[in-house]
């Protein structure tokens, strides 16, 4: 039996987007009639051509942007206050050290530097930046800046993690390690993750569900479910399930791009 299915599973939806439209003031229709459920505990990956509206969906869910049509409903609104977000750009405070950048969310939630410092150091250690905790963002390489942003998003142990191409600027070894770290963390926190990536392999490895979007107003081309029960390890990378998920995602991606350029 394939663990990859196209069927709609009816798990409890954490957030539901219904008929959501987003038209920017420039007149550009980024999303139209967009429907999406983010289910409790899943790892949902958005895949799609550049400019199809993936970042827009993340911003809408997290409330940083409001839809011009439709509704966004939360089944557990308190989770809205416990979101971790890795933006597509690192978005660090240029005047603050790496430590202070990662400390920021904890500081905002009222923790003192002493209480927080162990947690900050732990987060920095995970992304391999412990030696740079006193550096300013300007003194970091592109990948290091992104890792700092990842540490900042995870340091609060959020219930909902949004990640917009977090690992794109990282080498594959570090990327694999962080993928596994992310899975461990998710399990520990029973968090929900909404993930954007351009790597079909990464999507297939991490996700319990992949949604492929089209460049045309974010239309959903395909939805691929991967059994969450399957352990994600090196064996999985060479499994048929993985290969099939990759194949289907790649295909949908190709379709979506051909549709767009037609």
């Amino acid at each position, binding site marked *: 039996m394939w663990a990859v299915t196209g069927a709609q599973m009816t798990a409890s939806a954490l957030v539901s987007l219904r008929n959501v439209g987003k038209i920017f003031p420039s007149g550009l229709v980024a999303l139209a009639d967009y429907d999406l459920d983010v289910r409790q505990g899943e790892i949902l990956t958005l895949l799609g051509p550049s400019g199809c509206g993936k970042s827009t969906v993340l911003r809408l869910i*997290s409330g*940083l942007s409001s839809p011009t049509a439709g509704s966004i409903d939360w089944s557990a609104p308190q989770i809205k206050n416990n979101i971790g977000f890795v933006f597509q750009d690192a978005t660090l405070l*240029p*005047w603050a050290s790496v430590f202070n950048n990662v400390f920021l969310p904890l500081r*905002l*939630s009222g923790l003192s530097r002493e209480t927080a410092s162990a947690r900050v150091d732990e987060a920095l250690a995970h992304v391999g930046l412990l030696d740079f905790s006193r550096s*300013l*963002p300007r003194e970091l390489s592109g990948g290091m800046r992104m890792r700092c942003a990842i540490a900042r998003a995870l340091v609060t142990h959020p219930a909902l993690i949004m990640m917009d191409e977090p690992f794109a600027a990282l080498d594959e070894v570090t990327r694999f390690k962080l993928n596994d770290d992310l899975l461990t963390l998710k399990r520990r926190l029973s968090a929900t993750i909404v993930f954007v990536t351009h790597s079909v392999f990464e999507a297939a490895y991490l996700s319990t569900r992949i949604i492929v979007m089209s460049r045309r107003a974010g239309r959903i081309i395909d939805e691929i479910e991967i059994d969450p029960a399957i352990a994600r390890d090196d064996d999985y990378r060479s499994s048929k399930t993985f290969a099939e998920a990759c194949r289907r995602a790649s295909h949908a991606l190709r379709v979506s791009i051909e549709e767009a350029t037609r």
Partner: protein
Amino acid sequence: MSKKRRTIQWRDIGAPFAVFFAALALWEALVRWKNVPPYILPAPSVVFEKLIEDRELLFSSLMVTLGVTFEALVVATICGVALALLIAQSKWLERALLPFAITLQVTPIIAIAPLLLVYMQPGNAVLVCAFLVAFFPILSNTSLGLASVDFGLRDLFDLYHASPWQKLIYLRLPSALPQFLTGLRIGGGLALIGAIVAELAAGASGQGTGLAYRIVEAGFRLDIPRMFAALALISLSGLAIYGALAALSYVLLRGWHESARADQE
């Protein structure tokens, strides 16, 4: 490396002084060559002699003027920043309050000082005059700074539901720092001007007599060298204030803001 460093430091200090002394020498030469009488334009040497001769009188006046300057600058900074923060809260507040700030800015102190003396004690009137002159640049620049916060960072703070207070402390104030400091540098000079104008307009605060009065009185007596000596003290104070504020800028912005970094590397 270290040698290069030292060379740069020598040039840093040497160049402005060289230019400065060249300008003085030119002035001196011009006055001597054209035989300009001292009551029209005194030679720098004459001014310098006068500065030495009248040092006690002038320095005590300088202290009075500087006292007002610092008070005015402190008050202007506090009010300018506070108003900028208030204005930054909402477009509504901005539109409601800014007209008053602009009105205050363009109100000519010299012309209304007699009225101020009617409404308040002379000491306060002086402070208000000096304050009015200095506060607007601080307000404007801080406002620009507060409005120029990077949208990405703004989103970040929204995401964590930061309180307005937290946004202020951790985001908006640091973002606004470069512009605020420029406003402060402008305001520093203006506070000095303000102190002088205020003294002319509303009398010296306290018992002492500031430099403004020395200038007017020396002008009245046609003791133009002394007038220039007083002006020289004012210029030096202005340079000192600017230098101190520029150093403050450098310390606060070094490392992260483009304007305070010599080079990328």
